[in-house]
């Protein structure tokens, strides 16, 4: 970096937090020597961080901690559910998946076998519903990369909370946040399955046409 080149604000924040490498710190310090606006920005971040250090977590009463485990254990005593209910809910879930698998290719777009076309005709809301109903099947149908499916499987095995998963796949608003995700996906692009669509976390789910580079055709 040339000394007269303004560092990115992200860099200045890292610098104010003491997170830049020694070499980078020297470059930024050299720039700050003569750049009033960057100096003022760093000072303002440092001041902000010092204010934020004032925020404390209220300490619960000693009784709260003394009975913490006991209260948790009282809540986790096994509650026996009649077997008939367990069977019924299991069967209902299996039926829902079967119906979904049948419905996707048959009902939405008759005579078309291509997953890409099916998904292209669905709204984001509909796709989210499908994923919520049957995450494994729909991720495969969506053509998600094997690596992503494995991640989803890990996540579901550990939390089993599909709605939270869906929330993680959507919901971000900031443009640069999305860009940083795209960059990371581009890095992994070689691992992806060619000719398929990808789920892109960001402001909703977007689709890419087959083989269109990520970030351009979405």
């Amino acid at each position, binding site marked *: 970096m040339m000394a007269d080149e303004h560092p990115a604000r992200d860099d200045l924040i890292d610098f104010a937090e003491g997170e830049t490498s020694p070499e980078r710190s020297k470059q930024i310090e050299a720039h700050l020597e003569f750049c009033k606006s960057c100096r003022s920005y760093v000072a303002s971040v440092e001041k902000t961080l010092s204010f*934020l250090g004032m925020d404390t977590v209220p300490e619960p009463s000693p009784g709260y901690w003394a009975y913490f485990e006991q209260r948790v254990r009282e809540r986790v005593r096994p509650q026996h559910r009649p077997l008939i209910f367990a069977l019924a809910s299991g069967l209902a879930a299996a039926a829902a998946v079967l119906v979904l698998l049948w419905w996707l290719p048959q009902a939405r777009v008759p005579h078309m076998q291509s997953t890409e076309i099916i998904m292209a005709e669905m709204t984001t809301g509909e796709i989210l519903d499908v994923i919520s109903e049957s995450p494994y099947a729909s991720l495969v149908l969506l053509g998600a990369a094997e690596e992503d499916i494995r991640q989803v499987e890990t996540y579901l095995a550990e939390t089993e909370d599909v709605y939270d998963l869906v929330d993680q796949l959507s919901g971000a608003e900031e443009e640069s946040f999305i860009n940083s995700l795209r960059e990371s996906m581009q890095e992994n692009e070689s691992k992806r399955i060619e000719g398929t669509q990808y789920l892109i976390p960001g402001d909703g789910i977007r689709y890419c046409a087959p083989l269109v580079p990520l970030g351009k055709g979405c």
Partner: protein
Amino acid sequence: MSDLGGRFASGDEEAFTQVIERYSRKVYALCYRILRDEEDAKDMAQEVFVRVYSKRTSFRGRSSVYTWIYRITLNMCFSQLKKRKATMIPLDDVERTLTAPRVDDESKQAELERLVSRALGGLPAKQRAVFAMRFYQRMTFREISEVMGTTVGAAKANHHFAVEHLRRILGEAREK
């Protein structure tokens, strides 16, 4: 899988006690940082360990126990915020706080603490969570990304947005 993780996943009751002893305070602190309400955080910390207990046999050891528990904590806190339907304190409210009259140094300090708390409460939920893990719990961006299920870059971006957002709000406060 770590020894504690393995025993915990196999249903060892003593291991669960150790998990509670080791992580309950951190989980409570994170709940508070996200929910910004002491009573809600106390309830939520217990709920998290109820969930942790009921899911323990599904812990595969692909991540650390700590990361796994934090992920559950975040998911449950985010769900709670959604139920509240008010994750953001309107900026107008924060600005109103800033113009409150100052009487002496003590009230100025209290006012500033209140302002900081409100500014943190005004962050979007994910930024609030990332900022809490990074700034108050000194976690690395890699650890945060594992908890959040995102890339390191995304965790960093969320942190930078949070700092910039807080800088703007608190900076305006100083000017007033």
